[in-house]
């Protein structure tokens, strides 16, 4: 096989084939890492001095929050690439990332809520991080709403890219303003942002869960991108070949 150029995979047909090769490994990795991470987080890591066992939800909450932010940047990045270089597959990748990013954001918010309840008795706390996550969810939903409202795929890709970039530029500003707002209004209460002193095992568990979520995100996003490619390129020869292979 000739030397591998990344641009080879900008062709939907080759991307499709690549994903078929990678995905079994990614799923395997995701499952293995999740099991390892959860085991470490829920059974091996010690009980926390102040929060008891309820803190363990952070092994899902923190990795989910990290992923939600990384995925937004990835989405903006691929949308921009697709727009600048006229690369259809990159734009489809951006569209494929959005729902997964929204799911992780929601997961971070949900687990954040679970954390708050036993500790402070409320199902929601308007601290800086959670509020920023909520706004991030709105940004994701806005992107998804915009690209699905536009019938023309190319216009949708480009408009989505503009929105994602505008959002990406604004995220630091929004985060800064939310922190500002929070310091003004919050008294001297225990903030959720004050993480418990991390034992080695706790860090290890968080790392494993982060990698697990990454692998899962890759697998799911790739599968969704495959589906988008088939849907958009319906008239192309390679799609017909795929369909025939599946049927045989």
């Amino acid at each position, binding site marked *: 096989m000739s030397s591998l150029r990344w641009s080879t995979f900008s062709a939907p047909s080759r991307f499709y084939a690549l994903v078929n090769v990678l995905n079994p490994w990614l799923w395997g990795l995701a499952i293995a890492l999740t099991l390892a991470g959860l085991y470490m987080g829920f059974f091996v890591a010690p009980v926390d001095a102040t929060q008891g066992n309820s803190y363990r939800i952070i092994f899902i909450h923190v990795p989910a929050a990290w992923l939600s932010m990384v995925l937004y940047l990835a989405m903006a990045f691929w949308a921009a690439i697709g727009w600048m270089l006229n690369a259809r597959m990159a734009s489809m990748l951006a569209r494929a990332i959005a729902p997964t990013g929204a799911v992780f954001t929601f997961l971070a918010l949900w687990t954040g809520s679970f954390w708050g309840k036993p500790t402070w008795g409320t199902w929601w706390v308007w601290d800086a991080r959670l509020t920023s996550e909520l706004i991030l969810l709105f940004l994701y939903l806005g992107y998804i*709403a*915009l690209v699905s409202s536009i019938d023309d795929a190319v*216009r949708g890709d480009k*408009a989505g890219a503009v*929105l994602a970039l505008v959002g990406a530029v604004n995220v630091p*500003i929004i985060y*800064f*303003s939310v922190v*500002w*707002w929070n310091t003004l209004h919050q008294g001297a209460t225990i903030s959720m942002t004050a993480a418990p002193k991390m034992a080695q095992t706790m860090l290890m568990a968080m790392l494993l869960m982060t990698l697990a979520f990454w692998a899962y995100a890759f697998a799911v996003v790739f599968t969704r991108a495959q589906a988008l490619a088939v849907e958009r390129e319906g008239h192309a020869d390679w799609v017909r070949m795929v369909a025939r292979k599946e049927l045989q």
Partner: protein
Amino acid sequence: MSAAFVAVYTRDIRLALRRRVEALLPVVFFVVAVSLFPVGVGPEPQTLRVIAAGVVWVCALLASMLSVANLYALDHSDGSLEQMLLSGHPPTVIAAAKAAAHWTTTGAPLVLAAPVIGLLLDMSPAALATLVAALLLGTPVLSLLGGVGAALTLGLRSAGVLLILLILPLTIPALIFGSGAVGAVDSGISASGHFSLLGALLIFTALIAPLATAVALRIALE
């Protein structure tokens, strides 16, 4: 270049003057919306004073967003927008002119209506003055961001609601600094930090938003 700005701006103002009632609908909405809060929350002056700044800001935000959906829609449907983009003038200038016209016809009236509203909510004079000044800096930001949303959603079916969903998260910094300024004055501390941030936000938005709007317009018309 400034010829195009003046031409588009004066035309939009003239059009708004020909439809004065429609142009003032956002202000009417603003007043109605704010009036709902005492009804919903209870008329105790202490409560109203606490929530006043936030309520006024949020209602101003919503009023601004409601009227911005039409910023490009009519020009798009009668072909004027195409002519503007074909004129050879930088689309950034066109976008800036439209945002300026929107602020003049919607934002400025909101700023003028705010003191009256503030009195209804029992705000102190110092808080009122701060609110008006903050709105003066913040409403242009809303018009500029609204332009981006209007351009992105041009010609789409549910453009109005979609635009609000897209743009509201981006207006949160203005909301925080704007209402925070009033809160600061109410607590007796200086609001200069808030105003600096609002000013910086305005400058930043004025540089980025027309560019993003221009790009979105070209994409919508391709």
